[in-house]
């Protein structure tokens, strides 16, 4: 599977690579967890009516509390801004600390790579690389200063801190603009009073949210959705599945991937516009038809109306998604289900082939179903059993892997074989990925392998029969986790610089190495298999030595070294091309994770559409949300556009090339037009960059690839996606609430 981004641990992603070394951890974490968990439980219980009422405060007490919390929050935000100012205006330190390394990398464009490199810098590198063991203490005296001591080295990489920083700046920005407007409108004294009133009211509204009222409003939203025939979306989905057979070829290279991709993508393509339409028109229609009056005349807060809608529509979306996931699962299972026929003659021929020295080109094949056949293989059993028919030599039959699956075979009394349902296609491997580094032809450490001229630079190549090697460092290798040894799975690329032996694959070797002691042992010689998962066992005992005693260091680290053994030939590898299979997760759970990813996208769309519809008309809100959605899908492209990493220049330059049919590589002729275009692009790059950072990257919520390729979607990514969605929704909700509050009808 293609994993182009490094997948960090959730807490590393959230709090930075060195969070564990911060003085405030783990106690701060426990405290936050307690507060959030407790608050949620309290809200749920309150909403469900288990707890009687909320806090009993008088109106004056409530105002006072709101003012304290409101101003307190502003003070904290200001403090954050000041700290950020100090941090970012400090001159850079000469020593290359962990977080500096990561910052430099980030300026290169890939934050996650930066995190990984920062994390890498923290960890002890093997002696072979020539790097010294970097100590986290080194960086404690550098730029981050107090932050590093309290929050750990590299804390600035934690997205939580980044989010707090951005929210603080935005909060104060809005406050200052509001203050200016109020002072101009009402004069200094009244303006300040108005701002004070707003801060207090907003804080009070947010603090005194009633889960019960929110739930009641959410139910109204659900009823509205049902009234608006939301079920049509489901019917469309069913229709889509009915006709999907026309387009989906169960005989394709990997039908499982095709089917899973189809159901997940169709769901996504159907649900997002549906929810967009539903949530964009809800509030504007109510306002236009004045039915909102029946709500606002009740004792409800504007914040509750917004939150109620978001919650209600999200629940409708969740319900639909759940239904769709069940139907999709049945569709996939039914679509892929098939069996083959193996007659007694075929079975006998397979045995004959095995007994006469194996197969050269084509083994005996099963019947053809779903545009494929499986090769039938046989090996004699080591301990003969009496269960098989007498006329047949005793042994085991198995089928070759085709289209990502195989079948179980059961010998029949008449000598034929009964073929079971497909196996091995609907799985969720749990991979343990390692960190990849390279050695060049001379055996010296290098950043990358050789580029053999491929347009896509995902894989780096190592040359055969030279010092070149690809080395993966794995962590968390414990005997309890891998009691029988390590199951290594590889998907290597092969590049031949000369024809070589056509009928012979390229040979390679795998060795294990202790990163601390350097003790190395070759454990496996293999012949490459391209474009399929090639599995090998590294046994617990290697030439009389225990794997964990001799090759895994005390920090649970192990290195696996890959070499190509044929001169002039190359192996291509990327970080995710070799992993340790740490068991299998439930496919159904993974399938649901795929739908959860779509659910998060739906949540974002609903939140944004409801917030925008508080001050825009239905169609405009829909277009605005749709635009945001579209831009969000192209967030990565926008970032590259803003940072000049695309071919053909910025938007204006690209437009010129489009009209004049210039290619994207050659420089434009120097002219006033070109200069003007470049200047405009320079101007546009700032907003583009900001948008790429602020808008949620919808594409990253999509985990269809993981599900379709048979890999467990990492929990850390799921948590990160959820946190991302919530982090975006919170300010969106506040925005929606603020606008609704200013509407005359809710006053």
């Amino acid at each position: 599977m293609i994993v182009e981004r490094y997948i960090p641990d959730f807490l590393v992603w959230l709090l930075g690579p060195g969070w564990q070394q911060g003085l405030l951890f783990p106690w701060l974490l426990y405290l936050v967890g307690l507060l959030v968990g407790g608050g949620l439980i309290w809200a749920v219980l309150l909403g469900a009516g288990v707890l009687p009422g909320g806090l009993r405060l008088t109106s004056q007490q409530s105002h006072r509390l709101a003012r304290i919390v409101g101003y307190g929050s502003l003070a904290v935000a200001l403090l954050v801004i000041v700290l950020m100012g100090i941090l970012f205006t400090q001159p850079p330190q000469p020593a290359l600390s962990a977080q500096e390394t990561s910052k430099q990398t980030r300026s290169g464009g890939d934050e996650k790579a930066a995190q990984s490199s920062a994390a890498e810098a923290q960890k002890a590198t093997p002696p072979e690389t020539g790097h010294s063991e970097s100590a986290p203490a080194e960086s404690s005296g550098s730029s981050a200063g107090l932050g590093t001591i309290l929050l750990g080295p590299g804390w600035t990489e934690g997205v939580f801190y980044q989010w707090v920083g951005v929210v603080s700046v935005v909060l104060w920005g809005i406050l200052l603009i509001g203050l200016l407007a109020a002072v101009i409108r009402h004069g200094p004294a009244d303006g300040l009073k108005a701002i004070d009133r707003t801060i207090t009211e907003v804080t009070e509204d947010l603090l005194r949210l009633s889960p019960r009222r929110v739930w009641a409003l959410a139910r109204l939203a659900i009823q509205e959705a049902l009234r608006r025939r939301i079920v049509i979306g489901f019917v469309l989905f069913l229709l889509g599945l009915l006709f999907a057979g026309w387009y989906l070829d169960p005989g394709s290279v990997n039908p499982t991937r095709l089917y899973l991709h189809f159901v997940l993508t169709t769901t996504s393509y159907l649900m997002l516009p549906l929810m967009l339409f539903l949530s964009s028109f809800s509030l504007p229609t109510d306002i236009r038809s004045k039915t909102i009056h029946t709500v606002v005349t009740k004792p409800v807060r504007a914040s509750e109306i917004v939150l109620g809608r978001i919650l209600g529509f999200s629940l409708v979306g969740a319900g639909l998604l759940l239904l769709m996931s069940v139907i999709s699962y049945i569709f996939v299972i039914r679509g892929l289900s098939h069996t083959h026929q193996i007659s007694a003659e075929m079975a006998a021929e397979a045995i004959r082939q095995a007994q006469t020295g194996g197969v050269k080109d084509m083994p005996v094949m099963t019947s053809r179903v779903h545009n494929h056949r499986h090769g039938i293989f046989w090996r004699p059993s080591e301990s003969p059993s009496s269960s098989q028919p007498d006329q047949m030599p005793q042994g085991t039959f198995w089928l070759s892997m085709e289209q990502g699956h195989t079948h179980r075979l059961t010998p029949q009394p008449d000598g034929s074989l009964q073929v079971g349902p497909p196996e091995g296609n609907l799985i969720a491997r749990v991979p343990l990925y390692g960190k990849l580094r390279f050695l060049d032809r001379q055996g010296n450490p290098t950043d990358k392998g050789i580029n053999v001229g491929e347009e896509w630079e995902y894989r780096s190549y190592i040359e055969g029969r030279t010092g070149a090697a690809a080395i993966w460092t794995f962590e968390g290798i414990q005997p309890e986790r891998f009691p029988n040894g390590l199951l290594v799975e590889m998907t290597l690329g092969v590049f031949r610089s000369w024809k070589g032996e056509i009928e012979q694959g390229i040979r390679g070797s795998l060795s294990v190495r202790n990163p601390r002691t350097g003790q190395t042992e070759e454990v496996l010689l293999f012949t490459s298999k391209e474009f399929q998962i090639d599995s090998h066992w590294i046994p617990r005992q290697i030439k009389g030595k225990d794997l964990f005693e001799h090759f895994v260091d005390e920090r649970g680290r192990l290195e696996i070294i890959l070499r190509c053994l044929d001169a002039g030939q190359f192996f291509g590898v990327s970080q995710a091309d070799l992993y340790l299979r740490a068991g299998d997760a439930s496919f159904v759970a993974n399938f649901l994770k795929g739908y959860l990813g779509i659910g998060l996208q739906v949540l974002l769309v609903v939140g944004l559409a409801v917030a925008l519809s508080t001050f825009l008309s239905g169609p405009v809100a829909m277009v605005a949300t749709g635009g945001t959605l579209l831009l969000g899908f192209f967030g990565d492209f926008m970032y590259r556009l803003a940072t000049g990493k695309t071919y053909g220049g910025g938007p204006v330059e690209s437009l010129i090339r489009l009209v004049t049919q210039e290619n994207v590589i050659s420089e434009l002729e120097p002219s006033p037009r070109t200069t003007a275009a470049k200047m405009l692009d320079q101007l546009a790059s700032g907003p583009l960059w900001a948008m790429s950072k602020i808008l949620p990257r919808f594409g990253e919520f999509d985990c269809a690839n993981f599900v379709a390729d048979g890999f467990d979607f990492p929990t850390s990514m799921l948590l990160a996606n959820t946190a991302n969605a919530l982090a975006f929704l919170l300010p969106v909700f506040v925005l929606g609430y603020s606008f609704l509050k200013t509407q005359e009808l809710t006053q």
Partner: protein
Amino acid sequence: MTQRERRLYGKISYGVGICICILFLYSLGAPSTRDSSGQVLPGGKLAQLRAEYGLTEANLGEINAAGETIKLATLGLRGVAVNLLWERAHECKMKKDWTGLSATLQQLAKLQPRFISVWQFQAWNVSYNCSVEFDDYRDRYRWVIKGIQYLREGISYNQYEPRLLWDQGWFTGHKIGRADEKVQFRRLFRQDNDFHDWLPLELRDPTRDNWLCGKKCFQGVVQLHEAGHKMKGKSPLLFYSDAPKCQINYADAIVEEGVFDEVALEAWRRAAVEWRQYGKIPIETTFRDPRTGQILFIRLNDKDDDENYLAQAQKHIAALEALAPGLRENLRQQKLAMLTKRERAALETPPAQRTAQEYELALAAERKIAVSHEELAQRIEGPDRPKALQLAREAKLAEQMADYIDRYRQIVNFEYWRLRCQVEQDPKTLQARKYIYQADQEALINLPKALESYQKGFALWREVLDSYPQLLEDRTTGEDLVEVIDRYREHLGRISEPRLPPDFPLQDVLDRYGQKGS
């Protein structure tokens, strides 16, 4: 005019407008039908165009509902969708996402089923570019076949399009039979039951040889072309040669694989017959008859007939010169006298002794003193003049035709292949090849015996070359023999000096083609 009248006239004008539109639409879109006598009525313009370009889906069962639905689903944005799919196909190929590529190609096909270039480009992409991405030769073979299957799908939408069938023939013949992995590919092709069962009956061959299967496709192309579905973008000279060339390649391939019995002889015999038949086909040229302005047709065999164009030309020239004996020479002498001193000197210098400048001058002088037939006829006065002019024209045309035939024969290397077919039927050639084949097989097992086989093979080759000295005029055979000699020398080097004996029978071949770049 009252309000009511205005409304009435308005309605009438709308009605007339609608009727005109309906009539126009009917003239465009009326379907092709049959009258009571079973006569086909051509229908509207669109129906006629559909019939003309072979776009009609004759039976309801052939209508591709998926394609039609997907076209409708794009809501008129088919162009945009196609663009995106092409991009995606490229990205899938770049990222080696073969599942994605296959699915994208299917979608493209459903969106653009009549766009021949899509089928051609993507089938080529699959068979040639994607297949080489795989390291395992069996995977490579599968992807070559996938490309062919994609072409077949295209053919099912465009039955009367010879280009796709030609591509199928090319892929089947040349991709499988000329690749580095041709030994493995040809073997797998013969074993591929699924593929041969899937092929339409008219394209199956009992031998399951890729060249013969390819030949059937090329024969189909010729049939389509002759039925009026013109083969675009390819010269008839070339696509008429494809089928007989496949027979030659088949014969060549089986001999290379060690078949030296009657099967091989029969294959070469058949190749000779087919090549001869190819020479009899009237081939459309790019030249026009100066008298009528019509396109000229030639037959490659015409050069070898007793009454060939060159002989006709000579006959006409002789008749023309007989009308005014000595006039041509007189005219030539007059022109010679008008040459400059330097030109005359250059012309008088024997060609081998001319300098570069003299060579140029002599060439120009030759052109100046040449007397054309027309010039000669123009000088003839009296009652013979019309006859002379007629003879001059006919002589010129016959000479031109002979020249065209010569040029076309060179393009397809006509004479060489005809000779090859003849030589390969000679039992001596077959025996010589058998010795060389045996020697190659024995080289790693029994070297002395292998060397002996090589020597026998070379001796026989000497006899073959003596019998057919023209065979070495083309470098193909010469270079093939040099490769064999190199192998022999390599094996010789394993036991002694890799030096050839002084009386080595193929020394002349080595001298002629042994040097790289010679």
